[in-house]
């Protein structure tokens, strides 16, 4: 009795509702491909076939495959609109400005700057005065060991833990964003941030370099000369490699982010690990394990400035980043999909 009433009312509400609503969509478009409990349902009477307690079968099909990117877009917009993100990018953009001004002041003082790369990076800095393009390489070399990965650590560490901390994670999951989908979205956004952050450094360096120093043909590390156009291309390639060098940190940060409900803790742990690994990478006794540190081959991007390009370390770097992404990505997935969301 009441059952008939129920399905009657539900049909009434489902029927005239606006077309994009998922339930009618699935109801009208799909012949019932019933779930086990609804086994005997017949397509003959689609309007009233089930008591209202059940779900119209294969409702999931109501989702358009492309709509899935809605979450990614929302995530991107949300991330890049935050003041924190903008501040991080501003700090990164400031590094080339400081380096450029420092070099300018030093060289205008009369003494030619031939001290070499102070930060242990490739000796690009001496060339800046001859060619502003070298400021791009110098700035990337200066930010890659710390500033860039720290910024990534903040974004990646906050990715899940920050949402958990704010409580928004539970609402995203009941939306339902889907745990795997949310994790992938978060990782993709972090990678997008890697790329944007690197490009911000490179672009800022290029602008400052062009403003303060002459531009022109340049000399590679191997001593050959290449045109400015090709130099620019190499700079772009280097920026991409630098961005790719951050894939490992991003995966690590995301994994740590799934371990805790505190965004601050996740960020701090990620950045702490980053510093620790950089220090361990300097200790000779650890020679055997150093090739597995995510930062070990970071400065190999300088090899792109050789003629011909020396690919070995570059390849090792990218392989290592892929390994980190696979290992910590899987760990993050395993952890996040099995986690009780109590925040």
């Amino acid at each position, binding site marked *: 009795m009441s059952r008939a009433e129920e399905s009657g009312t539900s049909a009434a509400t489902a029927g005239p509702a606006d077309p994009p609503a998922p339930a009618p969509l699935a109801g009208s478009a799909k012949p019932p491909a019933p779930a086990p*409990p609804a086994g005997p349902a017949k397509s003959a009477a689609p309007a009233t076939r089930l008591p209202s*307690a059940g779900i119209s079968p294969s409702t999931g099909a109501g989702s358009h495959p492309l709509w899935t990117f809605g979450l990614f877009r*929302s995530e991107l917009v949300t991330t890049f609109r935050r003041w924190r993100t903008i501040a991080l990018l501003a700090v990164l953009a400031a590094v080339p400005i400081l380096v450029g001004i420092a070099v300018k002041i030093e060289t205008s003082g009369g003494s030619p700057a031939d001290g070499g790369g102070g930060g242990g990076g490739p000796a690009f800095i001496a060339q800046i005065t001859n060619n502003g393009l070298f400021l791009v390489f110098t700035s990337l070399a200066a930010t890659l060991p710390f500033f860039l990965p720290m910024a990534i650590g903040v974004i990646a560490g906050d990715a899940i833990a920050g949402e958990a901390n704010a409580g928004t994670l*539970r609402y995203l999951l009941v939306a339902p964003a889907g745990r795997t989908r949310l994790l992938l979205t978060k990782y993709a956004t972090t990678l997008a941030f890697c790329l944007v952050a690197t490009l911000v450094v490179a672009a800022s360096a290029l602008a400052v370099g062009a403003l303060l120093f002459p531009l022109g043909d340049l000399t590679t590390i191997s001593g050959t000369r290449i045109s400015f156009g090709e130099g620019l291309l190499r700079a772009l390639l280097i920026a991409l490699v630098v961005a790719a060098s951050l894939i490992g940190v991003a995966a690590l940060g995301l994994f740590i982010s799934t371990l805790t409900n505190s965004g601050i803790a996740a960020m701090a742990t990620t950045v702490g690990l980053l510093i620790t690994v950089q220090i361990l990478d300097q200790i000779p006794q650890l020679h055997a394990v150093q090739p597995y540190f995510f930062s070990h081959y970071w400065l190999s991007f300088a090899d792109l400035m050789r003629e011909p390009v020396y690919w070995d370390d570059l390849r090792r770097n990218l392989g290592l980043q892929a390994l980190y992404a696979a290992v910590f990505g899987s760990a993050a997935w395993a952890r996040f999909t099995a986690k009780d969301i109590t925040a």
Partner: protein
Amino acid sequence: MEDLSAAEQREPGEADTRGKAHTRGGAETGRESGTDREADARGEADTGREPDTRGGDGTADAVIATRGLTKRYRGGQLAVDGLELTVPAGSVFGFLGPNGSGKTTTIRMLMGLIEPTSGTARVLGRPMPRSSRVVLPHVGALIEGPALYGFLSGRDNLLRYDAADPTADPRTRRTRVSAALDRVGLTAAAGKKARAYSLGMKQRLGLAAALLQPRRLLVLDEPTNGLDPQGMREIRLLIRELASDGTTVFLSSHLLDEIEQVCSHAAVMAQGRLITQGAVRDLAAGARGRLVVTTPDSADAARVLKEQGVADLVITETGVTGEPPDRELADVNAALVAAGVRVRGFGVERASLEDAFVALTGEGFDVAG
């Protein structure tokens, strides 16, 4: 006479909006307790235990049905113990219990946020958390208060939550968000950063997020928390409105009178166990309403009432009270009048849900230790 109609007045409000699922709560009240939690994890077959309530439908007609649902947290704390919850379709279901009684854990298990230690939960006929992707687009939820992105405006918050639902059509997103904002009365504040919202406004925005799409089930955890009396009224009105559209509403609250006002069904939890569930009027009836006769002739009235089978008579200042008999009350009244008793008021005073709660648990709303 007057009082009788007063007693009846409760009915229409209940009946029109939510009286649909006529389970006889009395039959259900006996079935909770986790003793037979292994009875079966699979389910539906053994609902023959309730002969008269649902017949062959079994739990297929239930929007939420749990079987032996248990959650033991790491550290050994048993948060939910063998829960057998059945929420009929179309009901406004009140979920009651002291703080720490396992309500929120239950809701989180129903929403697929927490994995049960054992037992099963079916929502909209599908197992959770396995069918989250299919079930949850039909479910709007407000869990443990609203959570918002403080740096986004109210509208952007809703846009983001809607974008998280892969079944939500982005073409209608803005209209649906505006409609939801309008429905909870937040249109004017939609452009403000959520950080600047008051608790009541946040609560409304959380509700709006639950209403972004037409839902089959609304799970509302303490929805009137932080609202002023006017806001509470509005929310109750909204709940009634939604329920009359056929949406099942699962409402947790610690406000007993609130549950009594809006809910057709209720369940009571304490210390992780379900103490009782059923139709609200039956639960309250379980605590025995009292027949109240207002008359200056109390002695005569008491005598007549006793003849009419009214037990437990108490003579008060204004008249007589007693346990209502099983017979037609109009006849009792007629007998009083025929005996010359000057009846000024005659009616059954319903026991409140709170009376029922206290009668059931033997305790008030203390935090479980």
